[in-house]
């Protein structure tokens, strides 16, 4: 009987350890499997990595001359994401400061629940709202001819990444010790001065991490940009240009690309590129958070 207990305990602890390592296994697995599907490109003479990264010509299904350049999509991804961040970062930090420092505690709980609701909205619903609501508004109030464009995508991405930025930034502000606040107020600082001169500098690492994680989320967002940014493959010149992002390109074309064809493999290589970019962003944010926790 006793033996049996010891054995089952050993078994369950082994299972726990295995599950503990599973996240690492999955991240590696994702990288390995996505790379594996893209691997045959290495031996393919019709494909050049420099063309992939630095050409704006994307003609994967052309009969005469196929070109696989994703520069236009890279530009699309970064223009949409950066525009979204210029809207989301100030708003997100402001909202976090209000929730953390100015708001009385009872309304705060309700407001935080609302922010959580905003975070819970599925991206396909955002995309749908982009198609039907914001694109109409953009056509009505600006000079744009079509509503599904860079600005529309950026608006949606800003709204989607805001909840992450707000909740992480609020955590970062809450991690600032109360002594700092008391000291500043005792010296006669206003709350504005307290926020600007004390809290923001003290919480800066956490705030940067919050912004980075929001940025990573915006780069990887698929459905909303697929539905709401239009599908023109070119370098954008104004905020009213339709663009296509890397994620939307994969989602739009993977269904049509025959399995194991060069087109299919290039789409997987785009996935590798996206994985590496978001991995770098998230890793940086993670390292910043870690350093914050251990002074």
């Amino acid at each position, binding site marked *: 009987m006793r033996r049996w207990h010891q054995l089952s305990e050993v078994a369950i602890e082994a299972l726990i350890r295995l599950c503990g*390592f599973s*996240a690492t296994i999955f991240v590696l697995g994702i990288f390995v499997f996505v790379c594996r599907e893209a691997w045959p490109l290495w031996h393919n003479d019709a494909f050049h990595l420099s063309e992939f990264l630095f050409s704006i010509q994307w003609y994967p299904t052309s009969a005469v001359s196929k070109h696989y350049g994703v520069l236009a999509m890279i530009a699309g991804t970064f223009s949409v994401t950066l525009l979204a961040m210029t809207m989301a970062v100030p*708003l997100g930090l402001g909202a976090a400061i209000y929730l953390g420092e100015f708001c009385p505690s009872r309304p705060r709980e309700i407001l935080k629940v609302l922010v959580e609701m905003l975070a*819970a*909205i599925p991206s*396909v619903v955002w995309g749908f709202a982009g198609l039907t609501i914001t694109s109409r508004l953009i056509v009505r109030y600006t000079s744009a001819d079509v509503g599904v464009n860079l600005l529309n995508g950026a608006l949606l991405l800003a709204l989607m990444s805001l909840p992450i930025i707000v909740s992480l930034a609020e955590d970062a502000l809450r991690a600032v010790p109360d002594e700092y606040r008391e000291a500043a107020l005792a010296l006669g600082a206003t709350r504005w001065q307290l926020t600007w001169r004390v809290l923001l500098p003290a919480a800066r690492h956490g705030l940067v991490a919050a912004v980075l994680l929001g940025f990573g989320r915006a780069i*990887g967002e698929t459905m909303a940009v697929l539905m709401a940014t239009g599908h023109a493959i070119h370098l954008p010149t104004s905020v009213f240009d339709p663009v296509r992002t890397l994620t939307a390109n994969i989602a739009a074309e*993977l269904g049509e690309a025959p399995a194991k064809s060069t087109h299919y493999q290039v789409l997987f290589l785009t996935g590798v590129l996206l994985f590496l970019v978001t*991995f770098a962003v998230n890793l940086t944010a993670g390292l910043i958070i870690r350093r914050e926790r251990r002074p």
Partner: protein
Amino acid sequence: MSRFAATPQTRTKLRQESAAAGLFLAMLLCLLLPLFAMIADLLWQAAPALNWQFLISSPTHGMRQGGVWPALVGTLYLVTLSLAVAAPMGVLAAVYLTEYARDTWYNRAINMAVLNLAGVPSIVHALFGLGAFVYAAQFGFSILSASLTLAIMTMPVIIASSRQALLSVPHSFREACWNLGASRWQTIRAIVLPNAVGGILTGIILQVSRAAGETAPIMFTGAVFYKAIAPGTLLPYSLDEQCMALSMHLYTLSTQTPGVDPSIPNATAVVLLALVFLVNAAAIVLRTLIRARGRR
């Protein structure tokens, strides 16, 4: 002027304070108003199509009429199956990270991996699911492949909140149990898990809401545009079949189906949102109950 009147300096200070509060409140409202505007617009547009019949009937006339029943059932399938995989793994992973892991390089690597797994773009998860489950494991385009992809994608949610819950169990509880001669696993089973069960359940509920709304990971692994099922049946799909899903259905209706009456995609969006919000509300109620119990 009374003796207690504020000096000009104090008044400037007060004005500055309220200006700052107003500015930050305005920023928060910029974030919340679109939420209400969007929900109001969706409901308004969806009103003509929303009724009980819409929920329980199949799409007809090339999806231009009828309801969402097959998609709703498909979503329930995907969510349940992904939950069955992700919940035990996620909880046990959280147990490892809080109860067993010491601060070594590989455990730091695991923490980084959890953070990164949460940040991998959903379309890359889709590529992984296609390469690993559909082709390499030869599950084919099926409910099984789609739910496994969803499970891996949503596991970090469960890990994060279970971990919070486990960390909030006071260390003295564990020490008391160890002093009685209980082993590590006995302590976890008898003391730690029962005390953290509320927080763990909250995480699992949040996983459900994430999984219900995801589109990209299932689009290429197991969800289809249309699949006829017998009306009123509760278990129409088998695991090696493809299925419809609400999120995918909304995408198809709004981008691939010309000439559809706007009330139908709007009503689909409302059903999806209602599902997600109901699930989230359950999590919030549960969390409030736990906090109330903690205060007593």
